[in-house]
């Protein structure tokens, strides 16, 4: 007890030291530098990471600092009670991924209802604290309390409310009986009203929770004081044993090639495979001969490739600890060529819901499987409720270590349950499972104890033809994540756009669960007409720079100069050392 207290005092001291220490950090929505870069959905979170880089930390140290800080300044999108996926491309040549996806509680069964969107019964066992601490222990260089100090400082001293969080708080106001919730109200609605833009948001409770983690490590969250508070707040939905059982896992990253570049993505059961397969399919076409991002021929080819890749997600992408997934087949270039042959450059595949899954098994060097294509394709595809939630962090250090993190609580504000006294929200990941359907006995996304639900996170790193990190990117945006990621990569590599322009350019999304080709505002009328002439059913109801299409936070390296871009579709920011 006495030791714990002295450790807490040490953390407070560290926070104070960091608060006073001047750092050579420049931050804005688009930042440039040569000594490391961080891009995230909030400038202050990026600054937190850049401070760690300036203090001598590597990209992993900075990414963990940013990941904790973003839970403070963007509390609607990620949380200690959430989860995520990290991809790493290390300067020593290793490409890795850290899976800290959440797990279903131990008591659930195949027959359990997975439809709740709020409350404890919508929640999975959170993985964020385990994942970030594992990353730091295995690949970082600095102690946990040092990298968490900026986040703790932001929570304790407060930060100015921006227009983006104001909008989200306006939603939360409605969710919480208009600010009267006894836990949430005092933190986010101190006057009983949505606070003014520019007012200071303080979350002392969250600072307290983070100090416990900074002092005691992940055990504080999974076995200690925080675990007790979570179990009590979840009212029986989790047990202490559930939390103690949780582990983040290091996995092999998905590695594929696109136009001579190496694409490093997150393996199942998230959507790195969709990005890889779509790019592999597009490798069969010369997009540089098209007119660019607004050329209907280019949009058509990308839309069809994304559609085919998304069709493979349903039957083959499940929790890899529960199924043998035909990953090698899915990322095989020969398999992609077979899939590409289904694309007619002159006509859209319709209806989208009947696009067949492929059969990747013949392309496996070593046969494995979850049942094979015989039981598939599904003739209809399940759709889950989707919000434009989630957040992404890209980090690159001077040595060439790159980290991409996409983390989430699923819907904005997750389950809307705040842990009493600790100021963070729990996730609502459970609805990402499919409810059991006897007509689909081979569904790999059904509920099971300690299983991860399938989602669409896709943090991505691209190395250039010389093997150097060239692009670190990722986005929130639920079902739009793969399409926004692929389009941004294509904009840069095929169309030669600057990263800023590539991100700013309007986005579309094409996915087997969408009946229409959804277009962000900003496409020329003639492009829309040409797409319709190709047979696409086009939806043009979205606005320009609409956060429905995500919000890429990315870094590019060109001639040694790092350019970080914070999302234009949210109030993103980049920060780096000059």
């Amino acid at each position, binding site marked *: 007890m006495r030791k714990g207290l002295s450790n807490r005092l040490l953390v407070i001291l560290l926070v104070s030291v960091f608060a006073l220490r001047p750092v050579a950090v420049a931050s804005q929505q688009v930042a440039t530098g040569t000594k490391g870069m961080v891009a995230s959905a909030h400038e202050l979170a990026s600054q937190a990471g850049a401070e760690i880089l300036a203090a001598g930390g590597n990209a992993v140290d900075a990414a963990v600092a940013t990941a904790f800080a973003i839970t403070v300044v963007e509390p609607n999108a990620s949380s200690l009670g959430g989860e995520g996926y990290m991809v790493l491309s290390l300067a020593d040549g290793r490409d890795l991924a850290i899976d800290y996806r959440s797990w279903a509680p131990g008591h659930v069964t195949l027959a359990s209802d997975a439809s709740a969107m709020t409350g404890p019964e919508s929640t999975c066992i959170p993985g964020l604290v385990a994942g970030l601490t594992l990353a730091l222990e295995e690949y970082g260089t600095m102690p946990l309390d040092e990298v968490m100090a900026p986040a703790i400082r932001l929570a304790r001293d407060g930060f100015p409310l921006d*227009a983006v969080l*104001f*909008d989200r708080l*306006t*939603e939360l*106001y*409605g969710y919480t009986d*208009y*600010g009267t919730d006894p836990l949430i109200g005092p933190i986010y609605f101190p*006057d*009983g*009203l*949505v606070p*003014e*833009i*520019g007012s200071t948001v303080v979350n002392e409770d969250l600072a307290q929770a983070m100090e416990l983690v900074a002092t005691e490590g992940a055990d504080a969250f999974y076995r200690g004081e925080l675990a007790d508070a979570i179990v009590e707040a979840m009212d029986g939905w989790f047990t202490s044993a559930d939390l103690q059982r949780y582990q983040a896992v290091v996995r092999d990253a998905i590695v594929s090639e696109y136009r001579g570049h190496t694409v490093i993505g997150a393996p199942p059961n998230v959507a790195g495979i969709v990005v890889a397969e779509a790019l592999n399919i597009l490798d069969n076409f010369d997009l540089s001969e098209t007119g660019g991002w607004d050329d209907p021929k280019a949009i058509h080819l990308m839309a069809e490739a994304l559609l085919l890749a998304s069709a493979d997600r349903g039957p083959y992408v499940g929790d890899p600890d529960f199924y043998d997934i035909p990953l090698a087949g899915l990322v095989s270039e020969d398999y992609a060529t077979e899939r590409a042959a289904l694309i007619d450059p002159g006509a859209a595949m319709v209806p989208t819901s009947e696009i067949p899954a492929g059969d990747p098994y013949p392309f496996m060097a070593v046969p494995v499987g979850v049942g094979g294509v015989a039981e598939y394709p599904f003739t209809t595809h399940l759709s889950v409720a989707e919000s434009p939630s989630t957040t992404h962090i890209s980090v690159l250090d001077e040595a060439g270590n790159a980290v991409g993190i996409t983390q989430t609580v699923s819907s904005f504000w997750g389950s809307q349950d705040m842990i009493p006294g600790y100021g963070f929200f729990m996730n609502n990941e459970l609805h990402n499972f499919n409810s059991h359907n006897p007509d689909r006995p081979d569904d790999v996304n059904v509920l099971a104890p300690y299983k991860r639900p399938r989602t669409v996170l896709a943090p991505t790193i691209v190395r250039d033809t010389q093997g150097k990190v060239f692009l670190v990117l990722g986005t929130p945006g639920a079902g739009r994540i793969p399409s926004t990621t692929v389009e941004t990569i294509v904009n840069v590599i095929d169309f030669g756009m600057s990263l800023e322009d590539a991100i700013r350019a309007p986005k579309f999304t094409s996915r087997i669960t969408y009946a229409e080709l959804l277009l962000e505002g900003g496409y020329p009328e003639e492009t829309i007409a040409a797409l319709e002439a190709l047979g696409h059913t086009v939806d043009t109801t979205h*606005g320009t720079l609409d956060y429905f299409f995500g919000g890429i936070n990315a870094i590019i390296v060109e001639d040694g100069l790092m350019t970080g871009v914070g999302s234009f579709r949210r109030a993103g920011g980049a920060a780096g050392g000059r």
Partner: protein
Amino acid sequence: MHIRHGWIFALALIVAAGPALTKERGVAAQSSTFEQPAFIASIGQSAGAQQAKVLADRAGLEFTFEARPAPEMLEGHKTLIVVLGASTKGLGAAGVDIDAEIAWGTQLFEKARASRMSIVAMHIEGGTRRGPSSDRINSTFAPLADYLIVKGANPDQEWAEAEEANGNADGLFTTIAAEHGIPITYIARTLEAVGALQQLFGIGAGQ
């Protein structure tokens, strides 16, 4: 007070309130011209209406709150307070689209006028409620009100708060107020609506 024509009422109010109405922010009518009980509703189903409920409570106003009432529920009330601003989520939760919301709002205004109620329109969520959908609501209903309370500034005047908090940066409400002779109170912060409501309804010291 049973005024059916907004411009007549507005003219009377301008005369009564005098120069106070031309001030830039945090200023309300000086005369207590609106009667209680009031009925607070939302047109656009944004969270602003819920905030108006908190503000009216703090103002000491006697009121009924229902975000999307049947027009008949206005019976027995003297003033209708509508909070303008579209929320996609709010409309979705109500199971309506923007066209249905405008049609319903029109019925609500017709009922208020038929019941000889006065109407106060509030726009208190700043730039957040100034998109295409919100502006359909703003432009439809603000001109039909007897009084406007707007979080924002006259475009000719300085705005010291965050840019996004200004719901009148382009002067939409200033123009509506001028064209339709509707008195308008600008507030810089949401809480200032408490004072505006108190003055409008004659609540507080000396009243």
